[in-house]
């Protein structure tokens, strides 16, 4: 098999990073992680992952800000992003109503259903 597809996990909760990286690795992906939006954007640019899972509610730099930066950068704006949110579903409507930013590839609400998440990732990057 060729190189494993690489997923960048951005979440400030170490338990979630631990979970997602184990889950993805178990399913044949390689993972890298970041604890905040700054770090996340840097890693996205330098490592060019195939997909990013992005937590919305982070303290230092929110997922929304990081998403906007990814979108504005030519280098990273093609990377599919799955947003993970604990915020209510209205958030989805809100984000989609912003014209200047395309909606992310998918949303998942916490608690995340791991099977659905995996099948979405498979659909997006194989």
């Amino acid at each position, binding site marked *: 098999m060729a190189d494993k597809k690489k997923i960048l996990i951005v979440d400030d*909760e170490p338990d*979630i990073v631990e979970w997602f990286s184990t889950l993805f690795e178990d399913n044949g992906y390689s993972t890298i992680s970041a604890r905040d939006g700054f770090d996340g954007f840097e890693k996205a640019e330098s490592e060019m992952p195939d997909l990013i899972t992005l937590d919305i*509610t982070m303290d230092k730099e929110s997922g929304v800000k990081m998403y906007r930066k990814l979108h504005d950068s030519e280098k990273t704006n093609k990377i599919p992003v799955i947003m993970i949110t*604990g*915020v209510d579903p209205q958030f989805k409507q809100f984000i989609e109503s912003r014209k200047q930013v395309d909606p992310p590839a998918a949303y998942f609400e*916490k608690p995340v259903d791991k099977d659905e998440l995996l099948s979405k990732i498979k659909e997006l990057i194989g």
Partner: protein
Amino acid sequence: MEHPRRRFSDRVFDAIPGYLTVQDRDFKVVEANDAFKRNFGDHTGKYCYQIYKHRPEKCEDCPVERTFRDGQKHRSDEIVTTIDGRKVNVLVYTTPIFDDDGKVTEVVEMSTDITEIKQIQKQFRDSQARYHQLFEESPCFISIQDESLNVVDANRLHRETFGVGYGDKCYTLYKHRDKECEPCTVRKTFKDGEARNHEEVVTSLSGEPINVLVHTAPLRNADGEIEKVIEMSTDITQLRQLQDKLSSVGLLIGSIAHGIKNLLNGLDGGIYLVNTGLKKDDRGRIDKGWEIALRNVRRIRSMVMDILYYAKDREPNWEEISTFEMVEDVCKIMKERAESQDIDFSYELDGEVGDFEADKQAIRSMLLNLIENSIDACRIDTNKSDHHLVVRLKGDADKVIFEIEDNGIGMDRETREKAFSLFFSSKGAGGTGLGLFIANKIAQAHGGSIDVQSEEGKGCHFIVELLRRRPDIEEIKENSEPTSGGE
């Protein structure tokens, strides 16, 4: 035979409803009409003052006497007593009768019964006094304003709360402004005569903000023109506070749901690691997963405890506590937890600190909250590899002092200022925004305080000071207004 003309004037004389008498220079009643006779009896040989006033001599101020003296008509208000002892208010008119030489020979005195009018006047005065009392004692702020918005009258509560000097402008008294409010409802009411309601926040003499429901109504004169406007303001501050509290309960529920979602997510992760670890027979993975599961269950538990504490809003259950023992006990529990996260946990407790009076359960959960907060601040900090946490216990004659110091993520200024606000969390998904709020609330309920010194990236230092002896309850309540808001 009587002269027919004379008989006619007699008949008129008798028909007059008032009490009519003719008196000579000695005030002897020489003639009287029927009405007089009916009410005051036979007047033959009697004097006016005997009949009307039941007195032995002439009244000091007598209108009949004045008419004899100056030949003019006079009037006066008198109270007279009828033959059966009834007091009657009368309005007295006196008219002179002249002889051919222009000398006053007799005086006609006509007294009209105005008892009813007097009664109505009295009732009017009484009701005016009652209305005034109602105005004065109303439990709302009432002012009457002229067209220039000068307060021309104000009731007691208004005067006491806003310190009225008559002629002060409404906006100066209520809002400490130099200019008229825009829009001004009193003005609108002056313009169209409509009563209006609106809500305002005004400021008392002592600078206290008061939420008021303002009602304005026109005061018209007899011609229907609006002369003044009355402004009645009801204090609804307590209502608004209650509303704030209710809406913060709504926020709380949202925040709880959000918190639980996150913790479930963590729990799912732990379960996944344990399950797959079992399948792969990977001991390391099982341990890791189990640790995550335990941590999230513990967080759910402490969240539930916090919610219960918040929901109860209870008074401390005061008891004498051995400070050292309690803190040592808490430290032992938390040391294990911190060390499982590779955080070096130490404590420096003064064994001589002695007892203090507090709610043991509450103080315990306050310390647990603070220490847990510090453990989390270390756990999510990726910039340092070595983390440590120190708990200290000290005391002086009046206070016991707890300190919790960590080298975790720390707080910037904004975070520090909002740290104790309800629902403010700097831990993203990890926090519910309840822990520090509750800790602070517990300290306040004990008449104490929590101070935080912190720098972003360097760590936090919490200092809790509690009084050794139970303070005055009222004083605590005044000093511990709910801190709400935050994020």
